[in-house]
């Protein structure tokens, strides 16, 4: 496809900001995302072409260390299911095509959008609507899980001690953002 015909991607939360003195809540830039389901025999090959080792342990993630895929992270969602996010907007489908073995990869770049919640009150803000225990000893840096936030399903990823990435469906994003904005007004630390 010729580049000139490509329209600029607009996010559903573009331009919105929220937060308080303790927490900052802002929509993230568009990223490319892949939902992967794979048999055990395809995992090694997929990990190799993606440049990031698909994690095997529950609730863990893997950040790519290779120079050309530095912005790529693989999140464990289920025993055979992963969410791969590339903030550099790499063509993940094209990259995956080289992998061997039986797997399914679905481009969900436009289905999902993400909100970055950061600051001292980040954990408390998310805990306002998430039933999981998010304390550092149970949900350490790098931990990720599909869970609930209020009434919606989200994928939660702890990037740093007080930085969370909240991945939600695009159509739920206004609800998620409003929920976080409300909770961020006075996080219960």
């Amino acid at each position: 496809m010729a580049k000139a015909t490509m329209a600029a991607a607009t996010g559903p939360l573009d331009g919105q900001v929220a937060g308080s003195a303790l927490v900052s809540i802002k929509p993230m830039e568009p990223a490319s995302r892949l939902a992967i389901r794979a048999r055990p025999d395809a995992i090694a090959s997929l990990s190799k072409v993606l440049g990031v080792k698909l994690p095997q342990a529950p609730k863990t993630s893997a950040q790519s260390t290779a120079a050309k895929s530095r912005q790529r992270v693989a999140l464990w969602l289920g025993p055979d299911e992963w969410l791969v996010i590339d903030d550099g907007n790499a063509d993940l489908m094209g990259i995956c095509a080289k992998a061997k073995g039986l797997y399914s990869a679905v481009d969900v770049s436009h289905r999902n959008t993400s909100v970055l919640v950061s600051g001292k009150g980040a954990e408390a803000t998310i805990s306002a609507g998430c039933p999981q225990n998010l304390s550092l000893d149970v949900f350490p840096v790098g931990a990720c899980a599909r869970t609930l936030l209020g009434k919606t399903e989200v994928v939660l990823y702890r990037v740093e001690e007080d930085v969370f990435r909240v991945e939600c469906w695009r159509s739920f994003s206004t609800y998620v953002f409003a929920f976080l904005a409300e909770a961020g007004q006075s996080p219960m630390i």
Partner: protein
Amino acid sequence: MLLIHCPYCNEERPELEFRHAGEAHIARPTNITAISDEEFTQFFFLRDNPKGIAFERWRHMHGCGRFFNAVRDTVTDKFVTTYEAGQPRPDLPAGGENEKGAGK
């Protein structure tokens, strides 16, 4: 809120993430075309509704997405144990929680 142990996540998770998915250990007859209507009714429609220990399928809907089996006391709502789908019924401690619970 109940905490339910997911055998795939290997962790206790809040009950909001789970969905009940019917009775466990119901095998589809291999000779499905040969069985009578009564037998089909038995297999397809009729379910136990025990007071006490029940073997159920649950799904970690808003988590790993997997179906698993759980042993739950229908009186006390206590989850006795959970185990991966496809595993046989586990041995339960004799005179388990159900008798105690049912009496309350």
